[in-house]
């Protein structure tokens, strides 16, 4: 049985490391910051431990935190969802799917930045 070698040695300057880097950072953020966030908004505020809730979004440090918390996990979703749909062989063409996933994350990032800048 003959096997033609199909190895594809595409040079390394593809964009994959960018998406994977954001995906990976998003996973870390989701794992570490979301529990903290649930602690603050799920417990500390409703239980009255924090009363000045304006502080929770007006301070610039909090804005950076919220920006990171919202944007990076979006890339985590985009990358995971893209590969999950591919792997499930649902017949979704790759290019539009990639635009939907990664494009959606970019849109979400820009929207988060705008909203945080406005409040």
């Amino acid at each position, binding site marked *: *049985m003959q*096997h033609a*070698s*199909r*190895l*594809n*040695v*595409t*040079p*390394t300057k*593809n964009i*994959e*490391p*960018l998406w*994977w*880097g954001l995906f*990976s950072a998003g996973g870390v953020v989701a794992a570490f910051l979301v529990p903290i966030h649930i602690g603050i908004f799920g417990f500390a505020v409703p239980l009255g431990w924090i009363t000045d809730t304006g502080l929770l979004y007006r301070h610039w440090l909090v804005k950076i935190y919220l920006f990171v918390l919202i944007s990076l996990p979006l890339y985590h979703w985009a990358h995971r969802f893209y*590969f*999950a749909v*591919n*792997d499930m*062989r649902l017949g979704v063409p790759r290019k539009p799917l990639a635009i939907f996933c990664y494009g959606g994350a970019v849109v979400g990032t820009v929207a988060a930045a705008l909203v945080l800048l406005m409040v």
Partner: protein
Amino acid sequence: MAEPTITLNVTRYRPGQDQAPTSQRYTIPYKNDWVVLDALNYIKDQLDGTLSYRWSCRMGVCGSCGMMVNGVPKLTCAAFLRDYQQQEIRVEPLTNFPVIRDLVIDMSDFMDKLKSVKPWIIRKTEKPLSEGEYLQSPAELEAYQQFTQCINCMLCYAACPVYGLEPDFIGPAAIALGYRYNMDSRDEGKDLRKDILTGHDGVWQCTFVGECTEVCPKHVDPAAAIQRTKVDAAKDWFTSYLLPWGQK
């Protein structure tokens, strides 16, 4: 008292004779200290000399007797009959590979991929013999030692759903071995392995299912090698684009 027996349900495929793989049942004596390979050898010697399968060392070193045992990739020399409590054990060729005959798979795709990561020490210049050996500290050895345990048995390829879906993916063992040489302090070939390890069919295809590490009979952790290679490549990418002094 009748001697205890066990049945092996073995995949048969005889090219030129069978249109598609079929299965055949063999009932054999059950011995507490037998492994699946012993059972196959009994079948071959006593019941059906036409059964084909690969094996060599019988001791988990050569990596040739990998098969699917009850649907899980195993070295049959290390899969004890006593660990399968049921009356019948299913033995099939490794999945994700073309079958040549019975339990024998075609490994040429893997061999091509293995070669492509240049799994040997690459030096820009060899130092003269008179300067002695290349010394390594225990920490330098530790950095790659685990990955030297790979015996190329291909169980990780049979376990990898990504390789099943994307046959071009260079796969767990090849990446783990590429990583092994990249991490070796004596090696200078990292740049030569970069295009294959982090190119289109390299680490980015992996979705970190982790089954490769799960099934490895030598406790190599290919999933870790793949993730660390991704981290390395992502760091390279970000430094080359974001830092003006980064390597282009």
